[in-house]
């Protein structure tokens, strides 16, 4: 980049490179649990929620829902306990950001959980970590044990009247348990079948009690917001669109990563004003030697692809929607000119077919159909009309199911079919057959 790299802003990642930052002995002198102390001693739960609302913090799990607003939906005076669930399932392909938080700064994660639990007056936090993250599970359990011994978790935290337990609950290998209601079912010891909403979890969630579910990264922002105020957070990143009263912008910082066919895959933290091009070429190092970038999924695998010519877009929630994609998890996957886009579709469709929980017919059957049609096109057995068949499959799957997995299965492959139609057609040109065959 001729103009120099877009600057990093290390808020969540400030301890990532500090040796032993996962121990309380290192983390506490660096500020861990000061926000918890501030919240418990000087603020009411409603005041914490108010700061989070002012911050315009939006969920980092993929959907970008305003966190403060979600918290305000929690049913009060039900006579039942309220639970906070931290979504650390992180099974989205291409996403690895929550792993950095849990492994490198688990006390920040625990503090975020506790402050947020205080805000919604929860009596326990369950951190649902995917089973394939044994190191994250160990680090979190270690951090919780240290915090418990220091009077930061459990009964009468820091000598106040606030009591809250924090438990790590391991998953066992299922992408769908990242979907919030699939996660709740799994937490109850069942197959991860997403629930029909309503009732929403804030009213009836895990164990039929009011429950708030947030992503790890979302809640890890809360200590900073409590320390510096919601308005300071809202000053970072992309402000809301003044022309649209319902817009929330993309405030604060965001962990962003790049994987796939680039020179320098990795994870960084920025204010969302950075463009996808700066992320992929500047930090990701651009294409491998002698190659060209062909397509990029901005966040995870579940969003439509963007072409190399479309990368000058800011990494904000609304900005990416405007160009027909989405921020998702903020971790981009890059495909270069050696990548066969039809095979990429086979790969993506296989993932969703494998991960479908099987409750809805369009998803359970449709994902496999898509894979099989992609497979035969890739193998040169494509039939005339296969592209129309695919379009009809997309229509039959999208928007017809209990959860968004099915939509997520359609979006990336549909964008590839439309943007790389030529590659599909080239494979479908009938090869000359010997006479009489």
């Amino acid at each position, binding site marked *: 980049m001729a103009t120099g790299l877009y600057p990093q802003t290390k808020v969540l990642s400030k301890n990532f490179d500090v040796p032993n930052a996962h121990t309380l002995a290192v983390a506490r002198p660096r500020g861990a649990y000061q926000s918890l102390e501030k919240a418990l001693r000087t603020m009411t739960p409603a005041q914490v929620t108010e700061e989070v609302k002012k911050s315009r913090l939006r969920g980092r799990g993929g959907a970008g829902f305003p966190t403060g607003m979600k918290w305000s939906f929690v049913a009060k005076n039900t006579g039942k306990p309220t639970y906070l669930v931290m979504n650390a399932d992180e099974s989205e*392909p291409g996403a690895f950001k929550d792993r950095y938080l849990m492994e490198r700064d688990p006390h920040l994660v625990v503090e975020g959980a506790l402050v947020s639990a205080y805000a919604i007056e929860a009596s326990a936090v369950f951190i649902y970590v995917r089973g394939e993250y044994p190191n994250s599970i160990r680090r979190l359990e270690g951090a919780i044990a240290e915090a418990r011994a220091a009077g930061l978790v459990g009964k009468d935290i820091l000598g106040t009247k606030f009591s809250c337990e924090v438990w790590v609950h391991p998953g066992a290998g299922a992408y769908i348990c990242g979907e919030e209601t699939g996660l709740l079912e799994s937490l109850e010891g069942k197959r991860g079948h997403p629930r029909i909403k309503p009732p929403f979890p804030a009213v009836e969630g895990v164990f039929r009690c009011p429950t708030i579910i947030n992503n790890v990264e979302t809640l890890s922002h809360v200590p900073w917001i409590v320390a510096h105020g919601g308005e300071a957070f809202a000053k970072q990143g992309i402000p809301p669109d003044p022309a649209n009263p319902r817009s929330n912008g993309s405030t604060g910082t965001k962990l962003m990563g790049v994987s796939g*066919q680039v020179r320098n895959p990795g994870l960084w933290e920025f204010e969302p004003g950075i463009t996808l091009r700066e992320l992929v070429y500047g930090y990701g190092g651009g294409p491998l030697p002698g190659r060209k970038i062909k397509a990029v999924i901005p966040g995870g695998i579940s969003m439509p692809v963007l072409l190399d010519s479309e990368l000058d877009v800011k990494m904000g929630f609304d900005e990416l929607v405007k160009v027909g994609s989405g921020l998702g998890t903020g*971790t981009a996957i890059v495909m270069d000119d050696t990548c066969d886009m039809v095979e990429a579709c086979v790969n993506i469709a296989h993932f969703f077919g*494998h991960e479908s929980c099987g409750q809805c017919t369009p998803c359970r059957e449709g994902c496999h159909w898509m894979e099989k*049609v992609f497979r035969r096109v890739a193998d040169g057995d494509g039939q005339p009309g296969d592209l129309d068949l695919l379009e009809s499959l997309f229509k039959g799957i999208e928007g017809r199911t209990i959860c968004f997995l099915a939509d997520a299965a359609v979006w990336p492959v549909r964008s590839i079919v439309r943007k790389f139609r030529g590659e599909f057609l080239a494979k479908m040109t009938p090869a000359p057959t010997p006479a009489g065959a």
Partner: protein
Amino acid sequence: MTPPAVSPPPTGGDPRPREPRDANQPPARGTRGGGYAEAAGAPAGVAPASGPAKAATAAGAAAAATAPRKTPAPAVVPPTPVPFPPDDLKAACEALIARYPQRAAALIPILHLAQKRFDGWISPEVEAGVAQYLGVSDQHVRGVVTFYTMFNTKPVGRHHVQVCRTLSCWLRGAGELTRCLERKTGLRPGQTDEARRFTVSEVECLGLCEVAPALFVNEDAHVNVTPEGLEKLLDGLK
């Protein structure tokens, strides 16, 4: 012209596209619902002694599709539950149960403990033991065990090599790793050798995409793996 392996979704009749099924291949990893059907008749995931399966011809597959089932369905004998929890797991299991307002919520963490303790897989007997302990039906436990990929429903090798096949790893050569594994061990994804040294699996994204391609051997992650590196790694695993 040979008929295409997959026909388009037909408008009437059975709506599922059928693929020729090779009996020597592991069951397709499809929708999470294999249940008992997946286990029925499968020789415990052990690769046949005849070596790598040969590809089914279209004709052979067509015959197989119409031929009657050779093995009659085995008589259903309810498994004898193992005593659960064994003494060494009692304290851990009780601590887990105490975390939740409902006993059954401890099922998944307890299955993890059980799998480690009982030879790396969850047998029907272990399932029944866990079910009794938690006060849920055997079927409930079976449903959970078959839903989650980390629970093994068949015995596995001492070294369970799990190669990520998802997009970021695939873009960086995961396919070569699977082929290298097959060359070195003779095993395809889903298979275990007779000496139970290795089990080979293809898994979905492990969350190590920035250091792709990635694989797990049991619980240990290996990243930026090259075929040469993999060969060395395998040689070191006894």
